[in-house]
């Protein structure tokens, strides 16, 4: 039988606020256990929540960025369940009226195909704390520093049909939330968490199959693997005459498999109801307008502009706009250099990206900043540097030896562009290799390359290659 996969994603993005969603405690990562949890975060008797304005602004920013309906009135609800990392015995979340309703986003896969994925809703909620299972005499330790960190839960429609599509969607959202400055996107620290609802159905069937929710996926690579494993598992179950059970499954990256989370198997009855400690969040048009005015250029818009304004290929434009910082870097370097956009794009995508990757650095940590790269591009554009010399200068800049001009000066890397000087070197080389000159003149064209090499060697690599070629040819043919 032919099977079709159906995937919907629930993404929890930690919002980049300084303080928690309902208290004045810090959200900084990595503090000593329970040192960033106050009476509100601990659910102490009598403590009450007050909503963080920045969490609301970031949620609205996201809604506007995906052309969603931003609800002018939204409601916080309590999701009731007992768990040690959930101090109040309920999570404050949104149910019936989320702050962001239906929206959509355009995603593009590596092969260039694009599609629109529906976003059902995005709602604000508080994060839970952490359970630490190291040995406390067989007990579990609870750290509530994370409890109350603001989350935006972004729920997609079940619009994706393969693990690759799901990854493309997750990456698009990841890029967007970073563009918007609403989430640092750190998947290792759990700032950006992806749960996948996966089901399969016979191709052509209209109804969805029973789905399983796959959790604990902390990289895009694992997301793809986890979904693929789960799809295979479900197909195996169905083909051997079994039934898929609706359940939560945990991805184990070490074994590359998903397994049932028995502790969460129990029938859920969350008893949602409007939180009486919080009032309806009401947003007026002026507020929405202000947030709208503060929106940065979005990835897709920027990409289109790059194609049009800089005559870049869609591939280059996609690459450069995947991260806001990278796009800014490119444009800043270009502004300094005033060279052709393609030259700047090649350098950013080529040598710079390779160096960053190798060093494991983010663009904003690059030892060669946009001004410096622009300076280098200038010297390439005005022929001061050949491509080879430029690489040498780039490496020196990376090593912290200063700007392009200073390095050129210090190392004497300036390209020889004086015709007379080049001619003198050519003449000296030709005098040194009379046999090869004779061979060339007898019709052996291949020797030309050898002679070019010898001239460049004599010029210590600094001769302008085009001029060298021209002079050499002229001398040999005369």
């Amino acid at each position, binding site marked *: 039988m032919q099977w079709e996969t159906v995937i919907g994603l629930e993404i929890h993005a930690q919002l980049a*606020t*300084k*303080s928690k969603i309902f*208290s*004045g*405690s*810090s959200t900084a990562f990595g503090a*000593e*256990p*329970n*040192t*960033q*949890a*106050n*009476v509100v975060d*601990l659910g*102490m008797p009598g403590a009450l929540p*007050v*909503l*963080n*304005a*920045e*969490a*609301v602004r970031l949620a609205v920013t996201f809604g506007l960025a995906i052309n969603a309906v931003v609800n002018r009135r939204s*409601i*916080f609800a309590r999701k009731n369940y*007992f768990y*040690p990392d959930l101090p109040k015995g309920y999570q404050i979340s949104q149910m019936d009226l989320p702050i962001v309703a239906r929206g959509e986003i355009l995603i593009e896969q590596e092969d260039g195909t694009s599609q629109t994925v529906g976003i059902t809703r995005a709602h604000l909620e508080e994060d839970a704390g952490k*359970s*630490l*299972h190291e040995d*406390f005499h*067989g*007990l*579990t*330790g*609870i*750290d*509530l520093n994370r409890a109350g960190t603001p989350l935006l839960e972004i729920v997609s429609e079940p619009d994706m049909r393969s693990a690759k599509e799901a990854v493309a969607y997750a990456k698009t959202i990841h890029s967007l939330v970073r563009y918007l400055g609403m989430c640092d996107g750190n998947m290792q620290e759990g700032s950006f968490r992806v749960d996948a609802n996966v089901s399969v159905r016979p191709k052509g069937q209209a109804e969805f199959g029973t789905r399983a929710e796959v959790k604990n996926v902390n990289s895009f690579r694992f997301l793809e693997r986890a979904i693929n494993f789960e799809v295979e598992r479900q197909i195996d179950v169905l083909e051997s005459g079994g039934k898929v059970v609706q359940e939560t499954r*945990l991805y184990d990256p070490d074994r590359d498999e998903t397994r049932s*989370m*028995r*502790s969460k198997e129990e029938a859920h*009855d969350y*008893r949602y109801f*409007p939180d*009486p400690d*919080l*009032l*309806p*969040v*009401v947003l007026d048009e002026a507020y929405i307008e202000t947030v709208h005015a503060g929106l940065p250029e979005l990835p897709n818009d920027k990409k289109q502009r790059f194609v049009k304004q800089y005559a870049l290929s869609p591939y280059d434009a996609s690459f450069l706009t995947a991260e806001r910082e990278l796009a800014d870097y490119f444009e800043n370097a270009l502004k300094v250099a005033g060279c052709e956009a393609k030259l700047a794009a090649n350098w950013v995508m080529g040598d710079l990206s390779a160096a960053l990757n190798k060093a494991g650095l983010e663009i904003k940590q690059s030892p060669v900043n946009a001004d410096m790269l622009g300076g280098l591009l200038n010297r390439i554009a005005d022929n001061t540097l050949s491509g080879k010399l430029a690489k040498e200068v780039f490496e020196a800049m990376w090593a912290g030896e200063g700007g392009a001009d200073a390095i050129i000066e210090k190392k004497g890397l300036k390209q020889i562009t004086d015709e007379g000087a080049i001619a003198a070197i050519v003449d000296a080389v030709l005098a040194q290799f009379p046999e090869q000159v004779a061979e060339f003149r007898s019709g052996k064209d291949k020797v030309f390359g050898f002679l070019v090499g010898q001239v460049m060697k004599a010029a210590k690599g600094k001769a302008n290659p085009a001029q060298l070629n021209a002079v050499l040819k002229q001398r040999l043919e005369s």
Partner: protein
Amino acid sequence: MSITPNEVMKIAHLARMSVDHDDVERYAQDLSGILNLVEHMNQVDVRGIEPMAHPLDMCQRLRADVVTEFNQRDTLQAHAPAVENGLFLVPKVIE
């Protein structure tokens, strides 16, 4: 409507309160009594009436995103039932 002893057990588990076997029947009666009282609501037609979650017609105030609270762990854990290395301890959570 009445609540059966089975339902009492189910509700008690949802609310994470153990109920002694001997008390189940009594709770079933008590809760059924309360439900009978509550069901007097059914004598009125409330179709089209907007549910009222709050007595006053106000909307949520927003707090500026400022860190105003700092480490109070010692105070807040001073009377906690079980604490070690700053962590609250509970029986092993199995995942």
